[in-house]
């Protein structure tokens, strides 16, 4: 980096920092009490702000230039190259042992880490599946669903209510929940799927809200805002576990479900159906003109995503043993969407990384307590600015051609 460059960066950062300080001045410095009519001035905050924003801006400008450079470089090359890490990960010689190692760690985890760690890992795994499910709808088929959490709620309430009224166990309800999810997916999907793009987004958002509001208000059915407590944890052959054992058990269930979901989505992604979804996402008109039944493809994507969400709803209810409508707000949908986009739309590995990042980051940021949501929001913006295609860029399968047959 040349001296002129450094000077330019410093100047830019200085301007930005002055601007931000000016911008935040009233809100950072002044506090008023309109009842007592007093005003508190906190000038120290301004100094912190100026210093902090200067450093931030400096890094921002340097990163920005590097981003633009690399983007320009990428446009010049027709052949797309992957990063070293991606090449490393996709090379079967390394990928296989790495996967095996990952699996080993996953299996051994509860024996080496505390109940707490296992517990939050279960949460993260639930979000991995939710992310993969929404990835089918949004990432593969390109249907922006902002009410995804509604299906999560369907699953959770299916288990909670059946367990509460009829004492049905986890394993009995798990498939039932999936069926309910698929059913609701198709039910909601039919009328809305002919809407395009952002209209679909806003209608699904509306549906998500409606489901939550109905759960909140229809007290005689859903027990309203006070929710349903004492939901059974999953059992096996009627043995009752302690919380610690149940958590470990739950953890393994989740590991299996995650593996299953990865298997299913990975296979679907490179199948006839997966290709149709992708075509749908890229160009609806061309897709239909090539003989694909758009409505069917959309319904399949929508209801499959819903099925996975409902499945996770059942697990969620069994894990927390208590659910109420407050767990199924729009923010939750936004969070799952963020997992998909941040991780990389359409990429299984990306979504997994995204889920771990978004779920574990706030948990481990507990040390920063009050600031963690601030950092969280900033991270979302920064990742999008510097890596808009997500952490992992989705890749398509490379086919080996049977030359003889192709003649």
């Amino acid at each position: 980096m040349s001296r002129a460059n450094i000077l330019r960066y410093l100047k830019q950062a200085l301007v930005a920092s002055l601007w931000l300080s000016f911008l935040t001045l009233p809100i950072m410095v002044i506090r008023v009490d309109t009842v007592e009519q007093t005003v508190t001035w906190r000038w120290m905050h301004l100094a912190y702000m100026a210093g902090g924003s200067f450093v931030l801006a400096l890094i921002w400008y340097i990163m920005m230039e590097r981003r633009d450079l690399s983007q320009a470089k990428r446009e010049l090359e027709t052949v797309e190259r992957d990063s070293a890490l991606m090449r490393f990960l996709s090379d079967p010689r390394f990928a296989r042992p790495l996967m095996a190692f990952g699996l080993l760690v996953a299996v051994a985890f509860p024996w080496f880490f505390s109940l707490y760690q296992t517990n939050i890992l279960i949460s993260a795994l639930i979000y991995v599946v939710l992310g993969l499910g929404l990835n089918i709808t949004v990432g593969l088929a390109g249907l922006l669903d902002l009410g995804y959490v509604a299906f999560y709620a369907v699953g959770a309430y299916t288990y909670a209510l059946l367990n509460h009224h009829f004492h049905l166990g986890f394993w009995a309800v798990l498939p039932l929940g999936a069926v309910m999810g698929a059913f609701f997916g198709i039910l909601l999907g039919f009328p809305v799927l002919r809407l395009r793009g952002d209209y679909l987004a806003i209608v699904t958002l509306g549906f998500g809200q409606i489901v939550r509001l109905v759960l909140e208000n229809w007290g005689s059915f859903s027990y309203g805002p006070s929710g349903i407590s004492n939901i059974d944890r999953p059992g096996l052959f009627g043995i009752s576990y302690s919380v610690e054992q149940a958590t470990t058990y739950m953890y393994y269930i989740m590991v299996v479900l995650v593996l299953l979901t990865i298997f299913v989505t990975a296979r679907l992604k490179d199948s006839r159906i997966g290709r149709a979804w992708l075509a749908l996402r890229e160009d609806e008109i061309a897709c239909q003109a090539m003989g694909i039944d758009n409505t069917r493809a959309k319904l399949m994507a929508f209801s499959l995503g819903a099925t996975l969400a409902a499945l996770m709803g059942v697990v969620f209810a069994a894990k927390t043993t208590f659910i109420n409508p407050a767990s199924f707000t729009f923010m939750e949908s936004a969070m799952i969407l963020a997992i998909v986009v941040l991780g990389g739309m359409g990429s299984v590995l990306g979504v997994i990384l995204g889920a771990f990042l978004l779920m574990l980051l706030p948990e481990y940021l507990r040390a920063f307590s009050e600031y963690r949501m601030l950092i969280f929001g900033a991270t979302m913006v920064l990742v999008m600015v510097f890596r808009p295609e997500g952490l992992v860029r989705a890749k398509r399968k490379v086919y080996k051609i049977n030359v003889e047959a192709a003649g």
Partner: protein
Amino acid sequence: MKSKWIVTVLGVALAGMLAVGCGGEKKDDKKAEAPKQEAAAPAKKLVLGVAGAQSGDLASYGLPSVNAAKLVAKEWNAKGGVNGMQVEVLPMDDQCKPELATNAATKLVSEKVSIVIGHICSGATKAALPIYKDAKVVVMSPSATSTELTQNGEYSNFFRTISYDLIQGKAAAEFATGALKVKKVAVIHDKGDYGKGFAESAKKAIEDGKVAKVAMFEGITPAGVDYSAVIQKIKASGADCVLFGGYYPEASKIVVQMHKKGLKIAFITDDGVKDDTFIKLAGVDAEGVYATGPQILADNPVFKKAVADHVKEFGSEPGSFFSQGYAAAQTLLNAVAKAGGTDYDKIVAALHSEYVETPVGKIKFDAKGDAEGVSFSVYQVKDGKYVLVK
């Protein structure tokens, strides 16, 4: 290459926010440091977990309890600790979300914490309790008022320093039909766990009392900007009294808009509204509003001292559930002191038997875990202050 700067981006985000964030953190740090340094000397320490909403939009209900716990801990530590153990307060945020509450609970259990103040919201408490119960952790909530938490008799490890919805709703209803002699009551609530619980018990009490009628029972949309439609409906129902279950933001909006629409009938509400912020928000319109709230003997010396300490330590008046949080910290630490250690059974026994002077009165706990001697009184706003109605 790319992966390298993903990490860098994250690093920058963290570092940068720290720099920005230092402004507010600095002040807390100094205070947090003081007990820590003292704690460094004696080897044994007693960790007091404080779980509840400490960030997010319900933070203002959870943070006062953390302050209360810090104050009580400081007092004990100044006297040499509990049985020689320095008390350390460990706040644990759950944002009032059940799933985060279970995470917070397992975290506290993993850290071998044996006494916890929390959680703040009933929903979060319900989700977390099985975990504490299994690990034999004593939990005491300053604010979870859901009736079933204690009355189901399911959790012997759960206590609370606040009375519950059923009693409060009944108190409000009896006040309306008894002292105010109203005939038709409009019961409304904010659709929340707390507000609806209160409203439902009040409704039941009115119906059982057979003196007055419930003219309407409806939930309003929380955080709405305009409640004129529901106010017109109240008007049309001919009610001579409004009973509202919920928190002060909605309550203040309703009261102000009621008065604007010329509807000036008695307004009775709950402890979630019995907060000075309500009076600030509603201004002159707050005058005359009734609210039920835990009985606080106005000249209770412990209460006065706790508030004074808070002002001295944190530079502001304490917020919601401060007294209850303070009482919870006092009784828990006292129980550990009386039990001579962190043995679960002994702590529970001590809680059931030992009276403690707290801001909410002289209390011990009954068999179900509710504080004896804590009951509800009715307060009314007069000249910008809540005063006890005799």
